[in-house]
């Protein structure tokens, strides 16, 4: 998840290299690297098969799934960008909290259906399901391409999170040399993802999450003590920024950002990968009740943005530096290094899962579907491994060669895009009523409209204002686009039916969505 209104600014000021922080940081980094390679042996399976490499053999129980999804959804970028948004824009930044509250009841109801049908038919991606459900290669391709497009900038942004902490430790430099630490970190990541597949991030996620929890618990106790309590923290922020309490003009934007982001989250390929890798549909439901523990942590991490104001951190031109600078100011250097390592490792886990998910999509739904229909499981797995390397390399080149703002803009667009696959995937879990061509048309309209709105806003905000009968309605652009998408899908379903357009073949049966239920249900 991400801060949708991240403000973009210049570089962090050059500080002296902070050796204690750096040593601790490197120590933990080396530890998880070893873990990443060891992971290949864990719950050993034939890594030459895509569902073993790319879904961990669908064997993860409640606890591992909890760590995996937690590490997957709450990324390094989250820890940097969400508090940065609160720091820069006030109350709006807190939308991440209702967003991560409502996402889980939704997951509880919807995702077990996807798990069951995927298990029954051997689906690995959302696009696999769409193809099986609607018998439409073009719709499945649209879903796969959207997933890959939305994931790429997200991976790139994990690097932005990593960059922010590396810079805060005083390692800055110009040109390729300045990016060297980032390049090394990502090469290591690429190698162990290649060898271990989804098992690597699952194992590393456990370490990362423990580190994050320790950092946040210490921060929430120590920092308010030093700053004179939460009351002081809020008052200091009120003096620095205008809207610590959400103004009425922001209500609709706030709730549509929360709702739109929540509906989009589990459409992302990496979330689907995390969900499908669980061993049982009840694992998903249990996790829907347990994952809010991360939302609580996120709420406090978000408040770091206000703590930064109270601590006198001034970095309005580069809000991404707010949290690292807060840590350096309020923690002894060795503990700041620990926190930075937590954030950097927090970049590795989602980056690995995202690249695996994108590789699964490319291999299954583009390579095998359109180029090598008869390819073996071995070949499939080999291609996915190579694609996961290319995807990460692409993200690295992207971040090193292009302005950071470009990745942030694309990630913002990614959220708008991915939501346009909701009618095909989520509604498809419940009904076959919508016509496959109408879904495709709705998707196209949503994509164009959402992209148009973001461009019209010059990417400065994800909120788009439409005047309806003289009233200005400001809501999340992705939600506007989804509304248009749904209207088109419904209207054209009638049109195509009236014209007698051919329905695709549905290979799933009603009961497939509920397998795994007991005999009485």
């Amino acid at each position, binding site marked *: 998840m991400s801060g949708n209104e991240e403000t973009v600014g210049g570089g962090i000021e050059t500080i002296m290299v902070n050796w204690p922080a750096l040593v601790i940081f490197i120590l933990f980094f080396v530890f998880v690297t070893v873990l990443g390679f060891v992971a290949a042996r864990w719950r050993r399976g034939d890594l030459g098969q895509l569902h073993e490499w790319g879904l961990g053999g669908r064997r993860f129980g409640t606890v591992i799934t909890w760590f995996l999804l937690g590490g997957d959804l709450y990324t390094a970028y989250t820890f940097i960008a969400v508090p940065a948004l609160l720091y820069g824009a006030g109350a709006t930044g807190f939308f991440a909290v209702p967003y991560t509250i409502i996402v889980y009841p939704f997951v509880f*109801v919807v995702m077990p259906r996807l798990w069951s049908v995927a298990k029954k038919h051997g689906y690995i991606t959302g696009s696999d399901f769409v193809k099986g459900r609607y018998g439409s290669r073009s719709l499945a391709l649209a879903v796969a391409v959207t997933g890959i497009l939305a994931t790429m900038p997200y991976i790139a942004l994990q690097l932005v999170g990593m960059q922010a902490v590396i810079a805060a430790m005083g390692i800055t430099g110009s040109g390729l040399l300045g990016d060297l630490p980032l390049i090394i970190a990502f090469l290591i990541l690429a190698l162990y993802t290649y060898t271990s597949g989804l098992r690597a991030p699952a194992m590393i996620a456990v370490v990362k999450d423990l580190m994050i929890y320790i950092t946040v618990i210490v921060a929430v106790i120590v920092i308010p003590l030093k700053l004179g309590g939460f009351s002081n923290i809020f008052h200091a922020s009120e003096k620095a920024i205008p809207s610590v309490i959400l103004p009425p003009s922001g209500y609709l934007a706030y709730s549509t950002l929360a709702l739109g982001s929540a509906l989009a989250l589990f459409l992302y390929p990496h979330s689907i990968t995390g969900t499908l890798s669980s061993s049982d549909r*009840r694992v998903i439901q249990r996790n829907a009740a347990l994952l809010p523990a991360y939302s609580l942590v996120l709420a406090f991490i978000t408040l770091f943005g206000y703590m930064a104001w109270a601590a006198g951190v001034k970095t309005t031109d580069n809000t991404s530096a707010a949290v690292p600078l807060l840590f350096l100011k309020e923690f002894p250097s060795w503990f700041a290094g620990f926190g930075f390592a937590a954030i950097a490792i927090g970049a590795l886990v989602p980056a690995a899962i995202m690249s695996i998910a994108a590789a699964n999509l490319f291999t299954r739904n583009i390579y095998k579907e359109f180029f090598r229909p008869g390819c073996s499981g071995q070949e499939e797995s080999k291609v996915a491994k190579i694609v996961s390397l290319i995807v990460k390399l692409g993200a690295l080149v992207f971040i090193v060669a292009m302005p950071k703002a470009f990745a942030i803009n694309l990630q913002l667009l990614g959220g708008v895009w991915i939501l346009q696959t909701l009618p095909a995937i989520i509604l498809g879990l419940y009904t076959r009523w919508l016509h496959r061509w109408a879904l495709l048309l709705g998707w196209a309209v949503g994509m164009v409209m959402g992209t148009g709105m973001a461009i019209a806003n010059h990417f400065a905000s994800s909120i788009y204002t439409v005047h309806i009968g003289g009233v200005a309605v400001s809501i999340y652009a992705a939600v506007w686009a989804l509304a248009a998408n749904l209207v088109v899908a419904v209207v054209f379903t009638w049109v195509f039916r009236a014209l007698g357009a051919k329905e695709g073949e549905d290979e799933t049966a009603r009961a497939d969505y509920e397998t795994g*239920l007991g005999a009485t249900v």
Partner: protein
Amino acid sequence: MNSPSGRRRQVWYWLLLLPFIGTLFPSWYASDEPELWGFPFFYWYQILWVFLSSFITFFVYRMTRERE
């Protein structure tokens, strides 16, 4: 697969709408007062919902739990 007892159990799913209702209307909670431990209402109210939502989800899980 949807036997009558299964349907009856799924009635509990409606409870899952509560977190949406509780958090998606900022007009109800976008205020400073009442404060709690220095937190403006806007903040502690939403943090409270993290707990409520988790409890509700767990409760619905217990009530609809599928047999082994």
